[in-house]
């Protein structure tokens, strides 16, 4: 599809026109960090940022989500589903790694046999507009996982910053239609395209972190009983920072919350790092210590997910690396797996 451009000075008006039609999520600064939130004016969107603290997965898989409410006392169960009448949405300014994470999550929530209506309903109504990463962080290793600072996968449209303007690459028909519809998008001159190539090459060269994840998978295939796991977890606190801040982690719990004559069933993020995750009512726990839980996290992301969906459940965004309270760096873990 053909590239276009949009002048930075026109971005706000473009966002404003999106806001008139869509619920628009964009990065904003909140409590000292960057978060994806609904904006009501184009000028609210933050353009100069590395990435959000929490991944935008929460737009589709919120940390807490009501599955249904119920009232006791009537006929039957008295269940009421949520409306599912979400407005059409736009995520603007998502990073290419996070856009890819949505495609990875689709494997789970939009599977053949059981469609997760809560997720797919929002997902299908959302346009994804990414902004490429001219300045990847030292913790970014997207290129090791099949992505890259300008990877189009998962986006409908991707913007590449070439100083005064963005080159706009439509990725899907949806993206193309959006470009056609809005007057802010104009023809891009060959000079613009060549600056784009310069920018992307420069950024790609900045990604120094590399892990041979394909080899990791081959190693993991034979590593379940490896003594490696005996010490890997030793400094892990067993908290949920890495999994809750991960754009591809999607495990959840379901719980009921009762009030007087009614209540609700909610689903909540959950994590393999917690003992409760697999603790059975009988007291049996197949993953009783940090060792098994850490192994599950690594195996799930880099082996089981690859077995089942042919893609690792990691996009190399680096959030878990930046935020781990004890600097347990997943890249170091993967590299030591390679050395086994």
């Amino acid at each position, binding site marked *: 599809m053909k590239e276009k451009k949009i002048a930075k000075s026109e971005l706000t008006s473009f966002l404003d026109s999106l806001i008139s039609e869509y619920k628009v999520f964009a990065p904003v600064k909140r409590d000292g960090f960057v978060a994806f939130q609904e904006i009501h004016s184009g000028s609210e969107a933050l353009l100069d940022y590395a990435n959000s603290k929490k991944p935008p997965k929460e737009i589709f898989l919120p940390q*807490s989500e009501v599955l249904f409410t119920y009232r006791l006392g009537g006929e039957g169960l008295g269940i009421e589903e949520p409306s599912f009448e979400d407005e059409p949405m736009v995520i603007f300014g998502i990073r290419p790694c996070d856009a890819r994470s949505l495609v990875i999550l689709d494997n789970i929530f939009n599977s053949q046999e059981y469609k997760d209506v809560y997720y797919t309903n929002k997902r299908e109504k959302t346009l994804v507009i990414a902004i490429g990463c001219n300045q990847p962080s030292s913790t970014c290793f997207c290129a090791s996982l099949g992505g890259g600072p300008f990877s189009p996968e998962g986006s409908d449209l991707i913007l590449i910053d070439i100083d005064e303007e963005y080159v706009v690459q439509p990725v899907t028909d949806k993206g193309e239609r959006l470009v056609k519809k809005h007057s802010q998008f104009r023809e891009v001159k060959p000079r613009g395209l060549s600056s784009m190539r310069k920018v992307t090459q420069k950024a790609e060269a900045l990604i120094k972190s590399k892990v041979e994840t394909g080899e990791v998978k081959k190693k993991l295939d034979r590593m379940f009983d490896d003594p490696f796991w005996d010490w890997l977890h030793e400094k892990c606190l067993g908290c949920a920072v890495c999994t809750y801040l991960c754009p591809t982690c999607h495990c959840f719990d379901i719980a009921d919350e009762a*009030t*007087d*004559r009614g209540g*609700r069933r909610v689903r909540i993020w959950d994590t393999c790092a917690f003992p409760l995750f697999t603790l059975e009512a009988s007291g049996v726990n197949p993953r009783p210590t940090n060792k098994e839980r850490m192994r599950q996290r690594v195996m799930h992301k880099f082996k089981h997910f690859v077995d089942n969906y042919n893609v690792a459940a990691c996009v190399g965004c680096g959030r878990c690396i930046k935020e781990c309270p004890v600097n347990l760096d997943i890249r170091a873990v993967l590299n030591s797996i390679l050395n086994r």
Partner: protein
Amino acid sequence: MQDEKVDGWEPKIIAFLCNWCSYAGADLAGVGRFQYPPNTRIIRVPCSSRISPLLILKSLQRGADGVLVSGCHPGDCHYLSGNYVARRKFAILNNLLEYLGIEKGRVHFAWVSAAEGKRFAELITEITEEVRALGPAKELVKKPD
């Protein structure tokens, strides 16, 4: 407890009373026919030291407008020192709740002996009026988000 209407609002107070003194005091108030407002729901516990802060906070979360914790006077504890230990715990909790901005007058502590039926009735009357003056509980009430 969350579903009642606001107009015609009556405060709801949860009273955790120790089995040996305060509950007996409440009983005596009944036997002695001392009048007090009917807003209080009594929960009998073995000792004031049995009261975990969680019980107090959970009461406020689930819609109690006030909480009273009451046990034997110092020196009278059936288990000798339960109320002394509880006193330290409550001192910290009481300060912490006030510090965080939970209105003074939501959570009350009192010593009531088995002989103080009249005092119990007066205490409940006072607390009910104090809580009524504050209006419905706000801070910790769990609202659907």
